[in-house]
């Protein structure tokens, strides 16, 4: 079947088999930031935005992306670099395998929530697993990233 969707701002027409997942389609299109860590919907590595909402591409049918707006890390390079610098500053990465999925979910969270209490943030990111960092560095990085505007005002 043929589907038509926007991928990182570009209109795409693509042939997909009826049961292909969005994850596989995105990899075929060269979006290698999108990783598959578990394939059982537990790790969050395959997170992308579909119509602005964070979704697990490993369990999202490509057929359902028809007419949708799909964004992967490749489409938010500027934001990813900015948040990435906070991760690096906190030593919150080791292998970095989990970072693309985490970044996509942090960007979704930034848009969706109107306040960022620690518990709320932890709950929002509970579906992003990391085998290396122990999460504390990531959490510090996220908190500093989310309050960066306030710090700028203080300066």
């Amino acid at each position: 079947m043929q589907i038509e969707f926007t991928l990182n701002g570009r209109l795409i027409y693509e042939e997909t088999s009826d049961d292909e997942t969005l994850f596989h389609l995105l990899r075929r299109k060269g979006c290698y930031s999108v990783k598959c860590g578990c394939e059982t919907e537990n790790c969050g590595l395959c997170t992308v935005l579909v119509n602005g909402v964070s979704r697990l591409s490993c369990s999202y049918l490509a057929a359902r992306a028809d007419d949708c707006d799909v964004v992967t890390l490749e489409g938010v390079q500027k934001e990813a670099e900015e948040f990435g610098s906070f991760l690096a500053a906190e030593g919150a990465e080791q292998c970095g395998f989990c970072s693309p999925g985490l970044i996509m979910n942090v960007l979704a969270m930034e848009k969706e929530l109107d306040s960022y209490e620690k518990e709320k943030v932890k709950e929002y990111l509970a579906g992003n697993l990391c085998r290396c960092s122990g999460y504390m560095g990531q959490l510090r990085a996220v908190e500093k990233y989310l309050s960066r505007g306030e710090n700028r005002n203080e300066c």
Partner: protein
Amino acid sequence: MIKFKNYVKAESLEEAYNLNQKKSSVIGAGMMWLKVQSRIKMTLVDLSGLGLDGIEETDEEFVIGAMCTLRQLEIHEGLNEYFPGLFKECTRSIVGVQFRNGATAGGSIFGRFGFSDILTCMLALDTYVELYKGGIIPLEEFCRQKFNRDILVRIRIKKDGRRALYASSRMTKTDFPLIACCVSATDETYYVSVGARPGKAELTVIKRKEASGLKELAELAADHFHYGTNQRGSGEYRKHLTEVYVKRLFMALEREEG
């Protein structure tokens, strides 16, 4: 991963129902459960184009479309105002936000999974399911029915004045529940639903005057259910947890009453 040959985005409930009468077809909702099944089917019938993804609030009830996501339940203002904290508590530990942006209320209820937080929660409320052919029936009756090839269209929760609270215990934060309890109350009656025992949620209704104190009432409620053992915990442990959680929920509801 489920495999299928044909993807059909149903254009009407009638079309979805007719397609689903074949054993080789399967209904696709959030696809989160189906995805982890190793089944091979001919046709996947997608319900996502039928406008069933909203929550409507009237003076009498909440009408929840089968394709409404768990995240929608979690953050819906009306639900959270009428049942403070209830839907947030019963959804927040289900894997993660991205997962809850996919998994649906309809898939959770139709599946009648033993571990379901959603089923446990809704069973303690005055909840009805609206089936395409089977009409509107109480959720409790639906739980007792055998699986058939009907389609769950909507879930209806009556505003009958019950106040309700939810608690679950998990080995780790986002694991399946080890035990799941929901208690709702009217002036004279407690409705206690317990799931993940590990069997699917069941309901018991007890009158407040049936026992002298909340501890005794909680024990009475816990006695009503059968508990089983699996790798997450023994039946004995589950029963003990039920007594503790149900008592705590009774106490919290009493505190709210003032």
